């Protein structure tokens, strides 16, 4: 159905829900994908060195943590939740790894321990949201401060370096998956993104996520275990955040308590930019991935063109506002047009 002939008497229900119908033709996640391609082509045409494989490797790897964190964040936002403590958990994981490495632990022991800490941190978020019944925004603003504080307690102002070379090379962009320019963290992200996409869009769990995000009470009345789902999501988010902390530490070769400070906002920005509705119940994983990559490409282009970091932050902010506003503006305009059906 591409053309709707104007009917003399507008059908009641359809008039009221008109914006949804328009929304089907104009999918924001697809638009972001197109924008990503356009940005890539513009960069290739205008900026020298942009399309070099070395630059692309570096640009991709620079988004590694944001990309990894964006996966569970997408599921959370679709379910109507948010986890703002991820960057702090990244910092805590980094600080813990540094502190233990400094104390002479073996790295093979440090990694699982950090992951367990991340899992527990995520479970704490989930427990506060589901059992105590607090809104996730409030809970994770609290744990944002808590986990960052713990990171400082663990490592203080120190910076720990000299991590094992093999792991550092794995996380850096000097070594890539053989035959490609894809660094290993990004290759892992690709695999996880496929898993997340399948979970979100093709499993019963994913179906339930959308229902919880759109109308939690209706989901509960349909026999969906709302609390269990939320708990799982927060646990996964904490786990992934601690893993991202390891990647960050190895990539920069430095464990610090303030690693990844403020990164949670970039993650949320990328997810929203990808068309995932902050009110829950709407969004695609592909859109979120496109959002991550778009921010990555733009930041890389701006850096190559010697544009300061401050301006990059402004560009990201403007993009985010535009992405959140545009679908709503379209909806309002459509609704307004449909309120005057007789207009010739």
């Amino acid at each position, binding site marked *: 159905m591409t053309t709707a002939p104007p009917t003399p008497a507008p059908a009641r229900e359809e008039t009221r*829900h008109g914006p949804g119908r328009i929304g089907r033709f104009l999918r924001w996640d697809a638009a972001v994908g197109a924008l990503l391609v356009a940005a890539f082509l513009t960069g290739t045409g205008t900026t020298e060195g942009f399309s070099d494989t070395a630059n692309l490797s570096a640009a991709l790897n620079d988004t590694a943590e944001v990309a990894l964190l964006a996966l569970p964040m997408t599921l959370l936002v679709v379910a109507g939740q948010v986890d703002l403590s991820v960057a702090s958990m990244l910092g805590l994981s980094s600080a813990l790894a540094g502190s233990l490495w400094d104390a002479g632990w073996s790295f093979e022991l440090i990694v699982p321990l950090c992951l367990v800490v991340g899992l527990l941190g995520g479970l704490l978020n989930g427990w506060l949201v589901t059992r105590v019944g607090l809104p996730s925004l409030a809970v994770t603003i609290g744990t944002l401060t808590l986990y960052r504080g713990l990171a400082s307690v663990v490592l203080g102002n120190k910076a720990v370096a000299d991590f094992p070379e093999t792991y550092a090379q794995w996380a850096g962009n000097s070594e890539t998956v053989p035959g490609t320019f894809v660094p290993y963290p990004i290759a892992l992200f690709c695999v996880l993104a496929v898993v997340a996409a399948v979970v979100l869009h093709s499993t*019963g769990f994913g179906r339930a996520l959308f229902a919880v995000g759109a109308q939690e009470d209706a989901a509960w009345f349909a026999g969906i275990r709302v609390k269990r789902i939320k708990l799982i999501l927060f646990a996964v988010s904490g786990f992934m955040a601690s893993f991202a902390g390891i990647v960050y530490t190895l990539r920069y070769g430095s464990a610090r308590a303030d690693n990844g400070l403020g990164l949670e906002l970039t993650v949320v920005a990328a997810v929203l930019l990808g068309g995932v509705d902050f009110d829950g*119940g709407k969004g695609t994983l592909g859109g979120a991935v496109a959002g991550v990559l778009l921010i990555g490409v733009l930041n890389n282009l701006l850096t190559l063109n010697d544009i300061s970091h401050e301006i990059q932050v402004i560009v990201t902010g403007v993009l985010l506002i535009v992405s959140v506003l545009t679908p709503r503006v379209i909806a309002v305009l459509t609704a307004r047009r449909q309120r005057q059906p007789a207009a010739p």
Partner: protein
Amino acid sequence: MSKTAPAGADPAPVLALKGVSKSFGSVRALRDISLELRAGESHALAGENGAGKSTLIKTLAGVHRPEAGTVLLDGEPAVFHGPADARDAGIAVIYQEPTLFADLSIAENIFMGRQPRRTLGRIDHAAVHAATGALMERLGVDLDPGRTARGLSIADQQIVEIAKALSFDARVLIMDEPTAALTGSETARLFSVVETLRTEGAAVLFISHRLGEIFDLCRHVTTLRDGQLVASEPLEGLTEDELVRRMVGRDLGELYPKQEARPGGTALTVRRLTREGVFRDVSFDVREGEIVALAGLVGAGRSEVAQAVFGVDRADAGEVRVNGQALRAGSPTAAMRAGLALVPEDRRQLGLVMDASIERNIGLTGLRQLRTRGLVRRAGERARASDWALRLSLKYGRLSDPVGFLSGGNQQKVVLAKWLATEPSVLIVDEPTRGIDVGTKAEVHRLLSSLAADGLAVLMISSDLPEVLGMADRVLVMHEGRLVAEIPRAQADEESVMAAATGRAGSRGEAA
């Protein structure tokens, strides 16, 4: 204001409706209604749920504007553009649940937005306090103007609302089921306050499902049924039974195609189910092939019982068994797997995910069945939806359309489809035909009847008395959180059900 009640001849009406009609979409909520409220007189408004009482009140309060007819204030036509206009005209409405600011004092609540000022716009707290004290004295109640509203009983909150009305010099006091949540002594106190106001010359319009209160407080009663005026008459000489008949009497026609029931074994067993402060000690059985109605007034605790049985609310005590198997409390998932289904009353909030498509909504209860190696089969999801859409003659564009596109009746069919697709052995339906057109209503009744004939156990909550009488094999009646009567089909009629529902003893039904 005169302190003595006007005696003798009826004074001219303070506020009146003349030939008022109001529709919502295709539903005609009020048809050609006239009503006169006089100074110093208490007037009752009677009618079943959905008869149009709330719409009438909201028309008087300036919330709705009538599309035909006029509102007369002191005999002059008046147009209220909103509740503020009505309030300025001296009309005050006290709702069942008062809406005070919990953290403000009683005095601040009463004078919110119009506090007396001192220099530099500072609020004159002493004046506010004194004025509130004077209001309380006039009402003959002892409430400290300085205490915060938090923690006040509902009865006291209503008195604060009345004091607020008084501070606006309200001449008409409209009360919408003010006693629903009050105890006997609180009701008596409220009534004495209302009497004080009435003898000072206020006109009172009173709504209550408790017929006794109507007879205690009022002199005149207007009865509505299906949005139409049935009678407007003095209460003197009228009996409660006559009033009930005016409220409910109507033909039971083709709308209720009930088939003969052949009850089988017990499918649902509820024993001593209790939720503190909501319902208490509720026990009943529903057998295969049987439709059992749960009747009672709004607020009697019927939906709450259904939700506790299904596990969306957790009961404090008691047991639920489905086909002999005890259910884990507080788990709708467990209830669903045991063969229980609940079609909730509020389909827009609880029954459906409005933004999601028809097929997703119908599939939501079958995510386990629709899975192959962990993935949801889209074809299976669509087949499930189209199969049930056909069986319930759902009218839709595409199965991928959001359910919000559908009319109320078709939305209700989607909720039914979503639950029937789980092949339940016990179906609980809460107000299955509220807000849907007569044609679809008859279809839903036919469906329930044929499902029961095929052996499904049906528990139907309904405030629609003809529906209860037309469909049920047995009627359970709740009153104030307790199951007070069980009436077999042969003995169930309007009077016996209403008598039990309004808490009047001596009905033909026997206590369960």
